[in-house]
């Protein structure tokens, strides 16, 4: 009995030692694989990662608040999020995310319901906007007050999805609506809906209106953020990543059909495309085709950094952002 126990003990020790030796050798010889995991809200910014439809490990989509929370958690190497909102919050976070580049710069439109062409809101009209405290809401309010000088009542929906529902039904909280402030690609989805009985017209491109008002080329929306410390430790990988994003943005401007085909080859079902990206591939192609650029994709060759963002914030009457929150390359 004692002999058997001793034998078992010796056998167990041999196995344990061999296993530890294997792990030890493995840790010495295997190089660390560094991957850049990205998180983004669904919607326009996902076009910069269109080829990652099936890669749910390295490209994750989620709701806005959960993505914003990641700036505090620091689990992702890269985050795509509304640039000015994130920049205003970075000073309060202990992580070291920095702004790299702008992905989208204006996909906002003013639409009318059952109105004449180009008719603008009057004091009797009800206008529904969204994200009152975010960039869309602030830009819209600024244009209403200081550029168009309009006196209409603005009702504020929480997000673009709610505004989309308002445009589809023509009602908000039981009241009839005359105008809706909308974003692409949700707007295109509504326009393509043949069951809607009321007449919808797109009367203003907010990006163009903002340019006429301020001279600024873009309304900073989705931006890309990475951790400075991680960038400093893996510059080669990050610079390759930035080139990859630029190439995708370029393709979104020049050949959205190629992006459509890529998305469809990864995820054939349109509903599943919508769940993954925030839009079906066909809607994206329609919005982007013929140089329309309804997503407001920023040309990767243009510079849109600290100076431009601060000029935008100044135009809104907001505090500017310190250069320490912009990536040092």
């Amino acid at each position, binding site marked *: 009995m004692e002999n058997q126990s001793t034998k078992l003990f010796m056998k167990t020790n041999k196995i344990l030692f061999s296993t530890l030796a294997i792990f030890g050798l493995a840790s010495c010889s295997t190089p660390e694989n560094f991957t850049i995991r990205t998180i983004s809200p669904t919607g326009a910014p996902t076009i910069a990662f269109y080829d990652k439809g099936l890669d749910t490990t390295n490209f994750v989509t989620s709701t806005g608040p959960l993505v*914003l929370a990641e700036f505090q958690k620091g689990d992702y190497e890269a985050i795509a999020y509304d640039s000015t909102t994130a920049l205003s919050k970075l000073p309060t976070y202990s992580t070291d995310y920095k702004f790299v580049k702008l992905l989208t710069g204006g996909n906002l439109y003013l639409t009318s319901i059952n109105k004449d062409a180009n008719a603008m809101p009057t004091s009797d009209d009800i206008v529904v906007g969204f994200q009152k405290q975010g960039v869309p809401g602030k830009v819209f309010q600024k244009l209403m007050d200081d550029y168009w000088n309009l006196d209409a009542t603005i009702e504020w929906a929480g997000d673009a999805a709610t505004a989309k529902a308002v445009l589809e039904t023509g009602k908000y909280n039981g009241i009839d609506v005359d105008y809706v402030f909308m974003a692409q690609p949700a707007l295109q989805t509504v326009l393509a809906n043949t069951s809607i009985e009321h007449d919808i017209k797109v009367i203003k491109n907010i990006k163009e209106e903002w340019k006429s008002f301020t001279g600024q080329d873009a309304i900073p929306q989705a931006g890309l953020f990475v951790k400075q410390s991680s960038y400093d430790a893996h510059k080669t990988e990050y610079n390759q990543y930035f080139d990859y994003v630029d190439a995708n943005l370029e393709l979104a401007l020049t050949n959205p059909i190629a992006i459509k085909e890529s998305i469809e080859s990864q995820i054939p079902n349109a509903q599943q495309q919508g769940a993954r990206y925030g839009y079906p591939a066909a809607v994206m192609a329609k919005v982007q085709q013929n140089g329309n650029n309804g997503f407001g994709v920023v040309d990767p060759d243009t510079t849109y950094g600290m100076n431009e963002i601060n000029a935008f914030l100044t135009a809104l009457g907001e505090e500017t952002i310190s250069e320490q929150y912009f990536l040092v390359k």
Partner: protein
Amino acid sequence: MIKLKAFFKKFKNPIFVFLGLLFIFFLWFVTSLLVNSTLYPGPIDTFVELFALLGNGETYLAVLGTVGRMLIAFAISFVLGAIFGTLAGYFKWFHTFLKPLILILRTLPTAAAVLILVVLLKPAMTPIIVTCLVIFPIIYEAFVSGINNVEEPIIDSLKIDGGTGFKSYFKIYLPASASYIILAVVQSLGLGMKVSIMAEILAPSERIASLGRLINYEYQLAEIKPILAYSIIAIVIISIIDIALHIIRKKLKIK
């Protein structure tokens, strides 16, 4: 020593409640240190935020709005629950007739009800209707149980004395049902507050002042401290109502 013992005996319950509260704060404090993230603020940071919010007029308007709508919902549910519960208590066939409806109201996913109602109703109505859907079954069942649990000898006496009419309801049945009804009221108010705030969070509107809208706004910015602070406000309000009801029960000598 004897004085201390007497003091402890007299205030035993409040002392243990206080110790229980201290324990909760201690747990919260320790776990916040372990998690060490701005997404899980500790009690000190949260209370600093709470005092900042209490200095803001918007907070009081929101509290008034939320509590007001919750009380309206409670009042509607109480009246309907009393009427239908009494009828169901007296008439078994009516109780059976309402069983499917009560079951549906009990099991209906509240969030789904909110999302359906928000597109149909004006902003202030959704939290009221949803809260009614949740607390009506509780009040209803309290009246049914109260009436059905009146002791047999009392019912027999009433039959003998010919007192089975309207007056006997207020003089006999209702007082006998008081403990069931008071319990249901306490449960309803707490649950009603939770459901009302949830409905306001799911369907916020700039048109109405509400705690839910403020919580939703902070959630959009991933700001957890104010969310916790608003939650503490809601807990305090319900605790005050709870204590008030407890005192009323004691004064009326209801078990």
